[in-house]
């Protein structure tokens, strides 16, 4: 009898453990464009990240108008002329952490994992993959990744005369301090 209860308890708790989801609404994304003429930087500190450690599913959603630039007119041009933010207000990513089982969120430490999935940006969906690090410490998971996005891949047109100022390849950094989603 005791044995059966133990089995039941184990099964229940283990599955509960499995369905653990971590998230943040104040995640970070930055953009960096470098050309011989100038560097253009922007960051967004209100990005939503959610990870399901059972399945390895990961999703990211960022509002374009939340990207802050150094100069007001850059931000205006970014939204008005390039991203068309009223038509495409969000950039989203849906993907999977491929070797999710190698990340033990119960044990403090640093883990690396490969993430691949689809990013939808400016109405164009493209497959992306990168390597991310997950630092587990005291119930928090600090996620960190870097990758490049090509404007031309997402139908973002840079006029000929601005090609010296805006790079086609934009470096993206993603950071998120994830905590457990309690439901």
């Amino acid at each position: 009898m005791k044995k059966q209860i133990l089995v039941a308890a184990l099964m229940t708790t283990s599955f509960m453990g499995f369905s653990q989801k971590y998230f943040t609404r104040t995640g970070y994304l930055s953009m960096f464009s470098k050309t011989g003429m100038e560097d253009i930087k922007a960051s967004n500190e209100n990005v939503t990240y959610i990870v399901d450690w059972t399945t390895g599913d990961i999703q990211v959603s960022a509002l374009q108008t939340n990207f802050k630039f150094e100069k007001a007119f850059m931000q205006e041009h970014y939204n008005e002329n390039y991203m068309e933010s009223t038509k495409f207000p969000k950039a989203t990513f849906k993907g999977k952490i491929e070797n999710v089982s190698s990340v033990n969120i119960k044990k403090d430490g640093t883990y690396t994992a490969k993430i691949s999935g689809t990013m939808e940006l400016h109405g164009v969906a493209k497959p992306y993959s990168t390597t991310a690090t997950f630092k587990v410490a005291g119930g928090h998971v600090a996620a960190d990744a870097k990758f490049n996005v090509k404007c031309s891949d997402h139908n973002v047109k840079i006029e000929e005369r601005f090609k010296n100022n805006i790079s086609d390849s934009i470096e993206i950094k993603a950071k998120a301090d994830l905590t457990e989603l309690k439901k």
Partner: protein
Amino acid sequence: MKKLFTWGFAFAAFISQPAFAQQDTTDLMSLLGEDEPIIMTTATFKSTRIIQGQSIESVAAGDMDFRISHRFGTFNSGIHKLAGLDAASMRLGFEYGVTDRLMVGIGRSNVNEEVDIFGKYKILKQMDSGPKKMPITVSYFGSVVMRGTEWADKERTNYFTSRLYYCNQLLIARKFNDQLSIQLSPTHVHRNIVATSDIPHDVFALGVGGRYKLSKRIAVNAEYFDVLTPGLASNTTNSLSLGIDWETGGHVFQLHVTNSSSMNEKGFITETTGNWGKGDIQFGFNISRIFTIKKPKELVLLD
């Protein structure tokens, strides 16, 4: 029986959990209960002026807008004056963004040697998405103009205040979509001195303006000021202007045709004498160049 119950419980736990997990994989974001995002409407107009009159837009905090505005003579002034291109009234302006809501400016016009000083404050901002929606942007504009010319009558006692004119405007605009923006500008102008005692000191007018974007960098504009107060000098007409905005990096070029030659509010609203029907139409332009005066704090990207 107890045993059966226990196993049943275990089985239920086993099947129910993966079912949960499966549901979650379709859309994790929906678990967070998505809030409607806050999206502020920006760039209702390309410039701080629609054509002659103020738009709800202001210069960004820390930026200086150096403006050069010209109005040539009227097209019907004949070949000897090259259809008006020989004559030019102009205004030079320095306009500064104190905060993202408040801007101040000073300008000098050669017509009547006028100096204008103004402030513009954004009271409400249009927000189409978010918890507190706002359908319009509202700005207040106030200016004082000092006329510098010699006194018309040197014999009488002339007070400094007789050189002054005031303008109050409420600018109410809505950006309907990426292309179309419309603005209403109820206006009050006070003149401390007028030519004769039957001419009113206070003049009320309603401005209507709009822009339609043809491409990402080119827009067409129209603007009309209807003077509501009767009794202005008999040759006074309402100001009507049509124009194009052309935007490049940090410049906005505004090219237009208008029947007004003044480039300050009291001037083009209460002193316009050009008549479109008679061909008193002038070609004009505004050039706006933005300089960053106060460097915004450097954006430091995380490693």
